[in-house]
């Protein structure tokens, strides 16, 4: 019976937390269009998300494209399909690895920062101070971060896709000796507009997930510095898991 109690307890707590996150998500959406517009804050956050993540995303994408080329060449050789490497790299990056790996990297860099900033503000009464200055903290703090993540993630993914394909090109052509023209042609041969469009839509969703979960963790922090640390860890772990799980369902829906 203790096992049942444990399962029941955790299920209830999970449902409560998930519910609170969904409520925050709905309230955030509600506040996007209500004035006053926090243009300055939105731009500041977009710069934070973009600038903080850019180097990490580029390095991740570059090496991913490179290893993709290496792996697919080696494996496809087994059934004489090594000319398809360009296609594999392009389609894998654009449909899947670009959005997902970028999402995971950004969740680590940006998600943790959002949770830490908002968590610190919570424990030092700065969020209470916002209320006393007749300013809604969701409007002032969360909406700019939400919009910044939703807009910047697809942009980062475009860069990731390009660098990934470039990485694949470098390995295929310089190391494996593939014909450059062939690689480039294969990149485009089987690519459909739907691949790109859906990949970027996934990226936007991941941005929403990262912002909502990280801001929720920051906002609901309690317990001083230790609480902020816990909130930061939870933000990264939960956003990453949510990205990976929802990735399956979003992909099934889109493709």
């Amino acid at each position, binding site marked *: 019976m203790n096992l049942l109690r444990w399962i029941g307890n955790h299920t209830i707590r999970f449902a409560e937390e998930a519910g609170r996150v969904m409520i925050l998500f709905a309230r955030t959406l509600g506040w996007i269009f209500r004035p*006053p517009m926090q243009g300055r804050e939105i731009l500041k956050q977009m710069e934070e998300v973009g600038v903080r993540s850019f180097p990490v995303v580029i390095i991740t994408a570059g090496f991913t494209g490179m290893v993709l080329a290496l792996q697919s060449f080696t494996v496809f050789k087994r059934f004489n399909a090594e000319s398809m490497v360009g296609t594999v790299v392009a389609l894998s990056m654009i449909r899947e690895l670009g959005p997902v790996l970028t999402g995971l990297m950004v969740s680590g860099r940006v998600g943790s920062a959002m949770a830490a*900033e908002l968590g*610190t*503000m919570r424990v*030092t*009464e*700065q969020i*209470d*101070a916002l*209320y*006393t*200055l*007749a*300013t*809604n903290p969701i409007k*002032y703090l969360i909406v700019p971060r939400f919009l910044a993540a939703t807009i910047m993630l697809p942009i980062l993914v475009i860069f990731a896709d390009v660098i990934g394909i470039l990485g694949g090109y470098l390995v295929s052509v310089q190391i494996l000796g593939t014909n450059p023209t062939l690689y480039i042609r294969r990149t485009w041969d089987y690519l459909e507009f739907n691949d790109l469009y859906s990949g970027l839509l996934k990226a936007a969703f991941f941005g929403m997930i990262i912002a909502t979960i990280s801001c929720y963790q920051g906002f609901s922090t309690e317990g001083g510095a230790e609480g902020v640390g816990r909130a930061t860890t939870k933000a990264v772990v939960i956003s990453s898991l949510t990205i990976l799980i929802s990735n399956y369902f979003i992909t099934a829906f889109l493709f």
Partner: protein
Amino acid sequence: MMDRNSPIKLRVVNLYKSFGEKHVLRGCDLEVQEGESMVVIGGSGSGKTVLIKCIIGLIQPDEGKIYVDGLEITSLNERKLNEVRKKFGMLFQGGALFDSLRIWENVGFGLRQHTQLSEEEIRRIASEKLRLLGLRDIEDLMPAELSGGMKKRVSLARAIAMEPEILLYDEPTTGIDPMMADAINGLIIQMREKLSVTSIAITHDMRSAYKIADRIAMLYQGKIIEVGTPEEIKNSPNPIVQQFIQGKSEGPIKLM
């Protein structure tokens, strides 16, 4: 200044608030006249901060009513409550300055959010308020670069920037050296005189309380047990009040 016939600015009626098993406020009543400086005293954990947070709507009481200028605020929606909040300015215990903004942006925060003034105008008004509190040339610093006393003064400048009618002080002299504490007391009195605001301060610093208060109210076990002028409180026959104001660990209030 306040006189016997000033209208009632703020009224708290029969307030109850619990956090799980902890019953913090148990039927708290308080009346504050316009222009008055009311100081609420009480031991740690007596509910002073909870009371002040209920007054400004940060915490929703379980039962009871709060009237600001005759308007009952506990049943208001967020939008209307926000309008009422514009009448208030609050000084938090740790200052609660926004770490990512410069000092002038902190002080001018309300102005930026709620007015159409230009950046230069806002900066000018912020400088003016800072000067009122004895601070100059710190407009471009970040909060992390200031000492505790300076942070409190900047926080006060931020609270008065929108020229509020009611000022709330959460332990204004706690955590700073005695000289700065006295300076803050002086500033609080100045605010009252120059800006004709109603002020409510919570503290356990009796010296500060005697200096700044028109009336003092003592919170004990979730209720206000006595209200009076500093003279009346000093001479109170209530042993609970006497134990607190004299700072004795022995008496009707059990500490350990």
